């Protein structure tokens, strides 16, 4: 067992390859590895990420800062600077094609037309020297092969679709004349304008204030449902995930540690890290008590623990966790996958203890 896992750790690239067999799967990421070669060594920002997304479905990627969730999105879109970045392995199957194998020219037609992206920072994601009408219609002209006038009409339509009033006037305005919320709506309109199959939203609400956050999330949900596009939502906010998506993947130290339907993951967490995250949410009835936090810090990227990456902080860890890294395996009796030895059949005693804490945590969290 030990030997096998060590082998898995060394080998670059996943065991299976080739396009996903199920044509309903729009995006399948397998064994994705993205490294950054910096002065002090190599940072393995993403180190073996697997997940898949069906057409029209929504998937949330959650995790704390530095766990590699944004890098995953940037790798899918291939927006990384190479060097210092390096896509060290893996496959990104999108609609029957491996995005990592595409030539730049082909990739350009996938971007914008089939996949679009909503960024975190609406204040800086629009070019200050163009009117927003120009910016939206650029992609439309590029991918839909229509004239300038027609593109502007469609730009106005997409602004209307994201709930911007007087869009005919707005298209002639410059980004600096708009508030953050409106700019994020413009970004969403841009993402929407070419009817993409997949929308990647990288922390779309982080830079906005709370009331606007709710509006923007509602809007993203609505346009996702209306357009039938799949949505990949990257966030560190579990509440956002609970409200917005159907499936969720929890990332830690460049790996997916747990994934599955959102109710399963959030109500019956299977990985100690997920449980720790849920336990650390402040709640009204926890007033006055000390907040439960996950002890310790994210491991130094240059000194990753050899075994399970969560082992140094894990209250359930034992010797085995220090030596070998667990695989992402199906949890018996659940729809979720988890990267933890607790799910092995011979760990039933430890498992019982985990379940007891888990049920208690989720119960207090929900009440």
């Amino acid at each position: 067992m030990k030997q096998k896992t060590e082998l898995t750790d060394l080998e670059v690239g996943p065991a299976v390859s080739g396009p996903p067999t199920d044509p309903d799967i729009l995006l399948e990421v397998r064994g994705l590895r993205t490294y950054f070669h910096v002065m002090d060594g190599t940072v393995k920002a993403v180190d073996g990420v697997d997940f898949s997304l069906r057409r029209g479905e929504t998937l949330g990627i959650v995790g704390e800062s530095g766990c590699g969730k944004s890098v995953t999105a940037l790798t899918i879109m291939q927006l990384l600077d190479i060097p210092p970045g390096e896509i060290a392995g893996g496959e990104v199957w999108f609609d029957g094609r491996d995005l990592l194998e595409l030539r730049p020219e082909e990739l350009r037609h996938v971007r914008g037309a089939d996949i679009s992206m909503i960024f975190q920072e609406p204040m800086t994601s629009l070019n200050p020297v163009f009117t927003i009408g120009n910016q939206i219609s650029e992609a439309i002209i590029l991918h839909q092969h229509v004239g300038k006038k027609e593109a502007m009409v469609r730009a106005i339509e997409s602004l209307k679709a994201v709930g911007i009033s007087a869009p005919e006037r707005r298209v002639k305005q410059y980004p600096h004349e708009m508030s953050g919320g409106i700019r994020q709506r413009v970004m969403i309109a841009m993402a929407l304008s070419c009817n993409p199959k997949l929308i990647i939203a990288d922390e779309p609400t982080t830079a906005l204030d709370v009331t606007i956050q709710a509006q923007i999330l509602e809007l993203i949900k609505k346009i996702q449902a209306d357009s039938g596009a799949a949505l990949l939502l990257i966030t560190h906010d579990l509440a956002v995930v609970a409200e917005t998506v159907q499936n969720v993947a929890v990332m830690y130290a460049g790996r997916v540690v747990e994934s599955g339907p959102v109710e399963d993951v959030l109500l019956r967490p299977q990985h100690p890290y997920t449980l720790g995250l849920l336990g650390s949410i402040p709640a009204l009835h926890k007033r006055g008590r000390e907040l439960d936090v996950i002890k310790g810090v994210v491991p130094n990227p240059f000194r990753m623990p050899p075994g399970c990456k969560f082992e140094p902080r894990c209250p359930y860890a034992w010797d085995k966790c220090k030596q070998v890294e667990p695989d992402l395996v199906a949890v018996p009796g659940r729809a979720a996958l988890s990267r933890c030895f607790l799910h092995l059949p011979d760990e039933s005693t430890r498992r019982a203890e985990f379940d007891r804490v888990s049920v208690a945590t989720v119960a207090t969290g929900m009440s």
Partner: protein
Amino acid sequence: MDEIGKARVVETPADLEDLLAAHPDYDVQLESLNQRQLAWRRFKRHRMALLGSTMFLSMVVIGIVGPQILPFDKNAYLPTNQVVNVGRPPMVIPYFHPFGETTQLQYDVFTLVINGIGLSLLISVGATVVATLIGTIVGGLSGYFGGWLDTILMRIVDALLALPLIYLILVFSEFLGGGNWFTVMLIFALLGWLQTARLVRSVILSLREEDYVDAARVAGVSQMRIIFRHLLPNALSPIIVAATLSIAALITAEAFVSFVGYGIDPSTPTLGNILSGAQEAIGAGNWWWAVFPGVAIVFIVLGINFMGDGLQDALDPRAKI
């Protein structure tokens, strides 16, 4: 009320208040100015810039129109007056020569200066346009792509910059056969893009990290379009400013090169050539031959520097109002 449905545009809040006081039923909407209108508004407020551009533009007009009216013909010197062959000062000659006339061949200095302005501006503006184009393309590619392309291009720039420019120009004009104004312009252009390339590279280098570049890449915009349509407009103000200042520098450079005799054929009136011809005459008390072309140079260079200064403020897209 025949005005219903008609739009009225007011520019200041005070005007708006007056209008609303008179017509309380008016519907008010904000119309935004585009970048060009905003820049013009900022430029108008800059007094020195207005003065400078007036100076420069009037020199341009003189340089274009003047030679049409008073073309220089090197055989058309005034009939030599043996008595005063040091040339005559302004206004004291029988017919109208406001800037006086030169020694020996007794050309009309006014005609010389007007033609000199035209030719000097043509050389410096032409060379600047070509140099700015080359510099922008080289700097844009270098800054955006980085890597080995950047290394190669910038080392070429470094190597060329290490050579003392003014001697390079002297050597070049010696071997390319100076004399022709077009050759001199070409030399200036081919040696003048280095600073622009460095400037554009540094600006693009920081602009490429902006989020809107990623947004454009995500939208499937091609790399070349990102450089030249998305980034360059943001870098335009330093480029324009550098170009205006380069025109000023080239006016003086041309004057210098022609003055030391490596520039344009002495029989062609550029401002530098006129000064060069005048240098002996100054000793003989013939001040007008040197002063008027000198004043023309000062006018152009000062005007263009003020104008560049104003443009720098006006074109900053982040400036308020």
